[in-house]
């Protein structure tokens, strides 16, 4: 085993910890992680009995092979941009919001409610209203763990995870009870109002307004974090919460505010996704975006620009995988394994960049 003090390994080398991580190492970490993940995917594809080159080619074509494919990739990327940004804002303050999954559902719930309650409004008013309520719903579901953390020191990691489950049950209750479509066999709502559906950007594709909104939010997040005093305080809180406290930064207020913003963005993910591509609100339709958002945020190095790129990459993986399954039979589930493998290698690469190999 490699000891990390100055223990000598069996070779004439030893691993020594650097005072600062190597810049080269950190810059290379992302490409290295991607290559390593590619290698592991190849092994997994072989294990499924398929031809690696064929599978990868199919995936690539499925993701980028035509204009339609590319647009669909962006469709898949859209919710991930949102959740990645939501996680980024929180993680920058060292607030571990694992609840983007639940905040997204909360946003979808409130968005649906708004679409039904204000259904009389014309599109031009209904859409902003619906999206507004999506952000409110997500913000509220995010404020709860924020408040509990501030008031009771309740660990936000666990609270947000638990709340994810709670809101799933709430949705289940709503869908099987008050909001149930009486004509349908499955547990779901009626069809969503036409007027609330987000406009499509390119005809014959599914790419909707949500994508543009996502990019806008990414830009706003960038400005927030690096160009405003609030962003300064958020980052200060993330790096040295004790110092922030000593220098008059209102830690409690900032925590709740960050969770509200983070939840709001995740809620917006739910609202745009629901009214972008779904015909109705169903139980497990938007499963996983919140968790994948965490991976996207990490791969994007907690930077909005990186998040957009990482989201597109992951969207490509998801989009391309269906073609891969059709052509080679490799299960779509491969993608979920790959996404986390990329992050594991990324973290390992980051960790390794803190070491150097020296001759004894």
């Amino acid at each position, binding site marked *: *085993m*490699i*000891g*990390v*003090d*100055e223990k000598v390994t069996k070779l004439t080398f030893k691993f020594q*910890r650097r005072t600062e991580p190597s810049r080269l190492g950190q810059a290379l970490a992302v490409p290295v992680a991607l290559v390593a993940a590619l290698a592991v995917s190849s092994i*997994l594809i072989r*294990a*499924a*009995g398929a031809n690696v080159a064929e599978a990868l080619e199919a995936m690539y074509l499925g993701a980028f092979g035509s204009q339609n494919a590319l647009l669909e990739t962006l469709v898949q990327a859209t919710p991930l941009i949102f959740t990645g940004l939501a996680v980024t804002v929180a993680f920058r303050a060292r607030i*571990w919001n*694992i609840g983007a999954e639940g905040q997204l559902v909360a946003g979808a719930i409130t968005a649906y409610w708004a679409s039904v309650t204000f259904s009389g409004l014309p599109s031009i008013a209904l859409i902003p209203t619906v999206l507004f309520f999506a952000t409110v719903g997500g913000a509220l579901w995010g404020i709860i763990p924020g408040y*509990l953390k501030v008031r*009771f*020191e*309740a*660990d936000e*990691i*666990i*609270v947000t*995870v*638990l*709340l994810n*489950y*709670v809101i799933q*049950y*709430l949705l*289940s*209750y709503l869908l*099987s*009870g008050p909001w149930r479509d009486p004509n349908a066999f499955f547990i779901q709502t009626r069809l969503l109002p036409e007027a609330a559906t987000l406009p499509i950007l390119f005809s014959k594709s599914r790419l909707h307004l949500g994508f543009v909104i996502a990019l806008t939010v990414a830009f706003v997040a960038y400005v927030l974090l690096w160009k405003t005093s609030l962003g300064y305080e958020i980052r200060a809180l993330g790096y040295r919460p004790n110092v922030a406290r000593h220098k008059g930064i209102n830690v409690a207020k900032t925590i709740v505010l960050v969770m509200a913003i983070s939840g709001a963005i995740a809620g917006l993910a739910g609202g745009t996704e629901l009214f972008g591509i779904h015909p109705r609100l169903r139980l497990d339709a938007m499963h996983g975006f919140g*968790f*994948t958002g*965490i*991976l996207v945020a*990490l791969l994007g190095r907690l930077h909005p620009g990186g998040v957009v790129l990482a989201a597109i990459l992951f969207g490509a993986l998801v989009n391309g995988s269906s073609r891969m399954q059709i052509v080679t039979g490799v*299960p779509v*589930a*491969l*993608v*979920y*394994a*790959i*996404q*986390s*493998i990329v*992050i*594991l290698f990324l*973290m*390992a690469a*980051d*960790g*390794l960049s*803190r070491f150097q190999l020296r001759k004894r």
Partner: protein
Amino acid sequence: MMSDLLQATFVVGVLAGMFRVATPVLFAALGELITERSGVLNLGVEGCMLVGGFVGFLVAILSGSLWAGVAASMAGGAVMGILVAFMSTTLKVEQIVTGLSLNLFASGITFYWYRVVFRSDEITNIPTITPFRPIEIPFLSEIPYLGELLFSQYALTYLALLLVPVIWFLLYRTKQGLHLRCLGENPRALDMRGVNVTRLQYLAVVFGCMMAGLGGGFLTTVSVGLFIPGITAGRGWLAIVIVIAGNWKPQQILAAALIFGFLESLQLNLRGLGQELPYQIFLALPYIVAIAILIRGRMRSEAPLSLGVPYLRE
């Protein structure tokens, strides 16, 4: 309905179920206790349980032996443990992120592997195994009520309950336990006495994940007899809450695990009764109770002081 609830058979049924339902979380929580006592915050318990459950199920089906499956589930957990230890102890990566990523990795890889191995649709042809049956202790299991409650449990359940005093003894009466307690509070103190801190942490983490794997294995070989992707349904997270609720002490962890077991067992048995409250409330109850525990839990917490902080000799 109240009279139904108070019927002795109902109560006994719920309580007997409590032990069975608590078993997987108890294994995982005791394992996580050891891990956290060594200073590592392993949030990947859910993933370890999932991997353990899947591997256990796979081996049980392929080999035909349930006990082989159980052993495999422990091995699966142990492998995850090595990953956790490598990232946390050797590479000293942020432990929170490691755990989360491992959870996602576990759910992705088990889902994928399940599809590859079984190539089954979701609706038909779900592979199953014949699960364990409870052990009926002769004579004692025929005592009315008490027999069903205490003396007709699964072997693994008895093992889990036995593990509680064993771990207590290990922690407070042995040399390794003393070192473990020092490790989580102040690793430097042990390092400066010449104890191999790295090795001890690896051992603790691998043990902890192995226990979580065993908990997952129990789920697939006992309770359900099949594997569904996501079968653990947040039990790994409950195990983490149970460690906090139990204030890092084995006896209190047992109590907390039994409370959760009780809640879930209650929910399962209530379904049969058919009452008016939406069943989702009962499903959500354990999670809400867990949140309530966290709210109250911070007072006089005895969390290991160096929990989550990687040790550097510098």
